[in-house]
């Protein structure tokens, strides 16, 4: 036990409750100070179990200090600050509260020492993120939020079933390394992977995130998938199947993003792509790979938020989200263009950006392990990242043909949030020490060698050449690409409606038949016992006397028998 008085996650959740009642400067101050307070508290958490309490005979550890947990709680706090700054001008009263609830519960997962605490914060996260989506206030966002909630509640059910099974088998709730050797552990793994955006349900992510408001998507991009990376890092490091799950996600993200026209949906597919690198790293499972996955989650949150801030700024200023309606914005939005481009370079792992120093550790681990196929696929995927996010996004939004739109850069708070995150992308890429020191294992990796810089430049610049040579094939069309969400948006509702009709007609037949039967029975009773029925008729005394005699005679006979 220690003297840590406040849980950093609960601080943000408390802030979420207070925020709707605040206005103006006080509100802005609370939005910015709470995440900084949470960051301070995260760093005050000592190693090992901090709080412990007993629940149903199990020992819960709501806060536990660990290097990995601190790394994730740190980036979640930084993200809450940057996102809060970007969203200060958001008119929706709900969104920032929901975002703080969401960020606070993500920090709660990162600091949890047992599976029950993980589960509780996991579910609060689902609620917080659904409310963020909901607060966009459009019919499309409402429908998307319901689909999103459905998937995440289903994932929560898997996780809960797994945790219950694990506790029943082992009698222990501690969140430690698990091997997929029992149904319970497979269920836990499945629950984690749903949130990571793994197949076959990856579609929830590009379906839901782009429907949030201009600021909401920035928050959504950061927490759900990265807490999933965190729990996979802690629960299932070195589980080989994850390599192939991760590689599938990587290429799924690239191919769908290449076909996409909506600028924020391109970036949403790219989240699945980037999380795929992390999941593959977790599957490789060496210290270098796990460090790489953790570091990549950290840098990814920053550059992906930056990319979505630049897209959000474009949406905020123009009201447009399709690449086919945009282009030429560099003329009048220089700050947004430069910041967006820095984010694009960082996601592509260009030397001197944060992506270069994190993603390369995963490739290095594949290379050290002699995994040639994995290494080749990761290299191809790195080229593909530059293709779909590094060039395609900035090219179609800020450059390409001139759309004639001349919006100004967005308001100051939004500009400063972008500048802050752009600065972090470059600072982390040049000064690697602070990030490397936070990683779960000691780092002996040197990213900046002549060979590494040169090969990376070759890979990326020739990918750029491929983009411009094949540009005619990438022309934007007013289309979407069907994904697995089609199953629960088209056939499943039809099946449900069909089943509803069958049940309805069955109900009509049963209810109608029963009613007719009842009516007949009632009519019979009416005939017998109604006011005019045979049993209700007045009988003459004569016949009554006759029947009394018959009864008495019968009694006499019976008596003598």
């Amino acid at each position, binding site marked *: 036990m220690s003297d840590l008085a406040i849980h950093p996650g609960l601080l943000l959740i408390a802030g979420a409750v207070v925020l709707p009642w605040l206005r103006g400067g006080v509100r802005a101050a609370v939005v910015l100070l709470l995440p900084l307070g949470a960051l301070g508290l995260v760093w005050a958490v000592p190693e090992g179990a901090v709080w412990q309490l007993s629940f149903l005979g199990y020992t819960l550890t709501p806060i536990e200090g660990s290097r990995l947990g601190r790394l994730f709680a740190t980036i979640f706090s930084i993200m809450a600050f940057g996102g809060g700054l970007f969203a200060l001008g958001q008119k929706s009263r709900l969104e920032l509260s929901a975002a703080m609830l969401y960020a606070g519960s993500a920090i709660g997962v990162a600091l949890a020492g047992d599976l029950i605490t993980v589960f509780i914060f996991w579910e609060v996260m689902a609620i917080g993120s659904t409310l963020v989506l909901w607060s966009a206030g459009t019919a499309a966002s409402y429908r998307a939020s319901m689909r999103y909630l459905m998937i995440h509640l289903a994932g929560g059910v898997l996780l809960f079933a797994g945790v219950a099974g694990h506790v029943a088998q082992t009698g222990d709730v501690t969140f430690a390394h698990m091997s997929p050797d029992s149904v319970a552990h497979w269920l836990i793994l499945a629950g984690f992977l749903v949130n990571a955006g793994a197949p076959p349900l990856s579609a929830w992510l590009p379906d839901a995130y782009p429907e949030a408001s201009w600021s909401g998507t920035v928050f959504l991009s950061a927490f759900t998938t990265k807490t999933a990376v965190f729990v996979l890092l802690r629960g299932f490091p070195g589980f080989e199947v994850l390599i192939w799950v991760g590689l599938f996600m990587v290429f799924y993200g690239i191919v769908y993003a290449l076909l996409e026209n909506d600028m924020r949906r391109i970036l949403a597919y790219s989240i699945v792509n980037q999380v795929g690198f992390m999941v593959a790293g977790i599957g490789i499972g060496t210290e270098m790979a796990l460090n790489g996955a953790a570091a990549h989650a950290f840098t990814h949150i920053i550059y992906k938020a930056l990319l979505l801030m630049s897209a959000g700024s474009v949406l905020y200023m123009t009201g447009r989200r399709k690449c086919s309606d945009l282009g030429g914005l560099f003329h009048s939005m220089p700050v947004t263009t430069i910041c967006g481009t820095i984010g694009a370079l960082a996601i592509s792992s260009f030397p001197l950006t944060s992506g270069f120093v994190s993603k390369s550790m995963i490739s290095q681990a594949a290379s050290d392990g002699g995994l040639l196929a994995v290494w080749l696929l990761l290299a191809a995927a790195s080229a593909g990242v530059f293709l779909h996010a590094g060039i395609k996004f900035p090219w179609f939004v800020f450059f390409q043909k001139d759309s004639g739109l001349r919006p100004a850069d967005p308001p100051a708070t939004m500009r400063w949030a972008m500048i802050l995150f752009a600065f972090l992308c470059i600072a982390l890429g040049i000064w690697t020490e602070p990030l490397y020191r936070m990683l779960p294992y000691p780092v002996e990796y040197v990213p900046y060698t002549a060979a590494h810089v040169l090969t990376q430049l070759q*890979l990326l610049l020739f990918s750029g050449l491929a983009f411009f040579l094949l540009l005619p094939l990438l022309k934007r069309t007013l289309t979407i690409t069907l994904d697995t969400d089609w199953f629960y948006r088209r056939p499943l509702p039809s099946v449900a409606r069909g089943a509803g009709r069958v049940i309805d007609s069955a109900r009509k037949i049963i209810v109608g038949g029963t009613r007719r039967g009842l009516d007949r029975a009632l009519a019979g009773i009416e005939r017998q016992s109604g006011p005019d029925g045979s049993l209700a008729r007045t009988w003459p005394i004569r016949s009554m006397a006759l029947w009394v005699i018959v009864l008495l005679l019968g009694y006499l006979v019976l008596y003598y028998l």
Partner: protein
Amino acid sequence: MNDRHWLDEPRNVRLLWRLFLAVLALTVLVELLVDLHPHFAVEGLFGFHAWFGLLACAAMIFVAKALGVLLKRPDSYYNGELPRDE
């Protein structure tokens, strides 16, 4: 419009293209001066990362196009969805 940017001039765009191609050639040629200490045999092939990146990207674009033929729909495809409460 009088807000012509230097990037709007075709002359400058052509210049950028030449610069880009020069840098491409440079990244491959510098390979002769740097020890790449390859882990895999294939990495040791001349300009491996350059042509591998180019071909991988081309392959991904063609795969995407092929998948698009099957799975692309007009972006109004889901517009007929009923609100949940109906």
